[in-house]
């Protein structure tokens, strides 16, 4: 259950990319038959319908999905702002509605929240921050979708930081929380690994890990 069914075939790439970033696959199609013919519709994680100019077709599609014997949820409808009013009284046909030009961040949150409502994606293997994403199941990290070739300890350190953005950690804390065992390097090892991570993130993203003078390190910006 890793694939999002997307209508139509030319679903905007900004939306499919967000789904990919979340660690799921997309199946974009125009043929509703494909959907009804699937042996186990439960095999899909959810449905995402992008209305575009053709809102009536989208509404019909949503109704069709709802009327199935084994319904598929969540149904996420993406519409243009101007067409919102047409959805009045039809809100039972979908579980979530997203305005097409919402920010990527909002679209992502809405997809995650609607998945959660159906008990899906409760513990997504993917955690992300800005251009950075880590898949905890496959141990892979990407920055701007480009894979990072990390060593085990670099990966563990990055995972800890991404899971705790905005917080300042001392070297000793990082050493006990991430390494957790005696190591030849001691506390200075943390500096060494931070530098290695920054080198791998590349100049452009090295600033994601900030040095807090005479304290330690912080990942990501502080959110007020």
């Amino acid at each position, binding site marked *: 259950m890793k694939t999002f069914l997307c209508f139509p075939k030319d679903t905007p790439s900004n939306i499919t990319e967000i789904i990919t970033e979340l660690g799921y696959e997309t199946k974009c199609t125009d043929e509703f038959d494909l959907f009804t013919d699937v042996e186990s519709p439960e095999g899909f994680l959810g449905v995402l319908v992008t209305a575009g100019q053709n809102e009536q077709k989208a509404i019909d599609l949503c109704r069709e999905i709802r009327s199935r014997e084994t319904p598929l949820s969540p149904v996420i409808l993406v519409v243009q702002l101007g067409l919102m009013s047409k959805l009045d009284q039809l809100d039972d046909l979908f579980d979530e509605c997203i305005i097409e030009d919402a920010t990527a961040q909002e679209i992502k949150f809405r997809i995650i929240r609607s998945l959660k409502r159906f008990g899906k994606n409760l513990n997504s293997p993917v955690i992300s921050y800005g251009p950075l994403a880590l898949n905890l199941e496959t*141990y892979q990290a990407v920055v701007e979708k480009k894979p990072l*070739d990390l060593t085990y300890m670099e990966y563990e350190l990055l995972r800890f930081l991404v899971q705790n953005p905005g917080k300042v950690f001392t070297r000793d804390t990082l050493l006990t929380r991430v390494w957790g065992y005696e190591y030849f390097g*001691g*506390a200075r090892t943390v500096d060494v690994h931070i530098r290695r991570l920054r080198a791998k993130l590349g100049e452009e993203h090295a600033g994601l890990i900030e040095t807090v003078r005479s304290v330690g390190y912080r990942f990501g910006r502080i959110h007020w």
Partner: protein
Amino acid sequence: MSIVSNKDQINYVLRSVEERKVRFIQLWFTDILGTPKSFSITPAELENALEEGMTFDGSAIDGFSRVQESDVLAFPDPKTFQILPFQKGNSELARIFCDIYNLDQTPFEGCPRHVLKRTLTKAHELNYNFFASPEIEYFYFAKQDGRGLPQPLDNGSYFELTVADLSSDLRKRTVLALEEIGIPVEYAQHEDAPSQHEIDLRYTDALTMADTIMTVRLAIKEVAQDNNVYASFMPKPLEGVQGSGMHTHFSLFQGDQNVFYDPDSEKFLSKTARHFIAGLLYHAHEITAITNQWVNSYKRLVSGYEAPIHISWAHNNRSALVRVPVTKTSHPEATRIEYRAPDPACNPYLCFAVILAAGLDGIANTIELPKEANNNLFEMSDKELKKAGIRPLPMTLEAALAEMEKSELVAETLGEHVFEWFLRNKYYEWNEYSRHISNYELTRYFPTL
């Protein structure tokens, strides 16, 4: 402690190989002379290798052969798993460093990584962590079939107009490749001699740094080879110009504290640092065979270049063996000493092990630090040097071996197996060299005698 690594680390390696579609994994280790060795395994063999080690016949490896049993086990250290982007090919390639064990799973005495680990463990028992930051010098030469004289890239004739650019471009590409695999470079620059370059690495703990030097030497050679150029770490490839050294900066930490730093001491150099340097100077002649292990190494250690020839220390004197850069008060953690003897063709594991052992011995026996050498040592006469109590470093491989042979410290640090094999191998090299009739002799003597 079990020699099998923890499950998470093994899973990390196995999943990464699967996800990144790595086709071959190179198992890396080092022979006693510091030559990189490797064999490739497929992902299918990897899990077993991580859990049970890979058996191979050690008799083919320099210094690994023993009388009774020649099979040994290579145990990959999953913490060192790294995909290598600079290795050309149509599929991903990864490397893992290995520790070598006997079949009964006891550490194999001939494994240089064990030698360094053992010495680091001793330091660790005293709560010390040992850090190293090397400056690796090397030359680029025109590619040839392995015969003939080394031909620098930028002295005019060979690559003509593009020459200076080509070698600097190679160095830049190497630095980028290193950064990509997480090896931060502090400085990279063109050195004094034609086609000579230097790459300075940011400090790490000594074991990681020894592994890193093996990787860097390979990366430099690979990038050069891809561009049809030959990179060499030979200590003195060209007569009359600077040789290639590997000056290395060292520091000792206890937790967060740099124990070489003391705000109340002269020039902030702590007592511990003074004893460490004293130990290094005390044992310098004994460890030189390890830090400078080739006949050619001693062609670099001659007067008039940036290489040290006298056992001495100073804050700001590049003719001294140990230099202590004066640190800014704002950066106490940067207090360090620089040992200027090693060359880039040494075995970094053994080199760091004997340097650390010598320094620790200075601390343990509170050896007194001699007076700082402020004069240019190259300009002092033998008499003046003797009066100042400054001894020379061994001048040939043979002299260095004779000093090493008498050293309890080196024997204990290297262990009996490495110590004996090394001496045997190196005396053999010296004897071979002694039989050689050099060009010098032919041009100097043949016309007149």
